[in-house]
């Protein structure tokens, strides 16, 4: 029972990560890290797994960088 609940929570978290990863690798990365301007497809693909795992952290970075630009 406990194991099932944990797996469900992890599953939802990962699903959130997958949804987040799409806009993030297309647009978000360049706002969070200037060094990624003009990077190619290979680089964008290779950071997807990490984005799926660390998405809440990257989301907060993205929001902060947006505020700075305003």
């Amino acid at each position, binding site marked *: 029972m406990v*194991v099932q609940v944990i797996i469900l929570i992890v599953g939802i978290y990962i699903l959130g990560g997958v949804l987040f990863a799409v806009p993030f690798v297309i647009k978000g990365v360049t706002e969070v*890290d200037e*060094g990624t301007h003009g*990077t190619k497809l*290979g680089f964008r693909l290779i950071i997807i797994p*990490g984005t799926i795992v660390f998405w809440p952290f990257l989301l907060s970075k993205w929001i902060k960088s947006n505020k700075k630009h305003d």
Partner: protein
Amino acid sequence: MSASYQAVLWNRQKKHYDWLIFAFCTSYLAVFTSVTLVYNPQVTFETLLIRSTSTLALLLLHVILSIGPLTRINKKFFPLLYNRRHLGVTMFCIAAVHGLFSILQFHTLGNVNPIVSLFTSNTRFDSVSAFPFQALGFFALVIFFLMAITSHDFWLHNLSPKVWKTLHMFVYLAYFLVVMHVLLGVIQYETNPVFVIILVLGSGALITLHLVAGFQETKKDNIKFHLQRESFVMVCDVNDIEEDRAKMFCLDKERIAVYKTDGKLFAVSNVCKHQNGPLGEGKVIDGCITCPWHGYQYLPHNGQSPPPFKERISTYDVKIEESKVWVNPVPYPEGTERPGAIITINQKEEMFV
């Protein structure tokens, strides 16, 4: 050097190295398969795959963990360090095949979710001879996964080097989990002690290597410099340092590299901003101190990476008196410009006296 990222940094040397890894892995799998088929022709494909990938991953893990101490003991091993990440990702992929097929083989036959089954089919955590060793392998694999997906420099910068380093230190926990996974697993189905002996020898070698490297390093750090004057410490003779190279010193717990270039001496931090590489083991290339590990560069007179890069390291005061080099171990804020110490012809010539 964070200006632009590539998917994978490949140069000729790294390509060579990756081919070597690939050739080694395929040969290992081929030899393992042939030998098993000779001694045990009834073996199933799944078992063969599970066992060949698990032992290969374990072997690679030992190689990976030896690279750090080996390079600290002898500089000749540095080329190994450059591609340690590729080796790590390779190891993860191979271990993942082992984990995946184990789950397929042992946990997909019932009607319980395979991951749930992994944790619930055996709950004898109080037993040694029937311990649910697969859970240990699972957690080790999770750690290797996190390391593999964050192995790109992008993560080093964005998670911050400190968090990244901490995460990658978990490799030692993962290693421990794997050792227990194997020991507790093997005693459940294998009567031949050879496997346990090999593993114990491997761990023994790893621990010894780490101890030797650690011991050598503390010895270096504890060298006492006796001559002190007005907070400057005498460290060596001007001629002890080669042109465009450095000597490293540890003064008051500060790791300092004293570089000789263009007729001057400059003292900067010995710790690279990228992954704490030893800057004093590098050399001056195109006027920049170049880290031997991954090539980050810093200007000798102010410790700043040349634009557009933004890394900065601490600088220190250095002076020369009668061909002796004196360093003040109090650091200036990172990126502070220092004049360095001019080497006069006189001091150079003393070499021939």
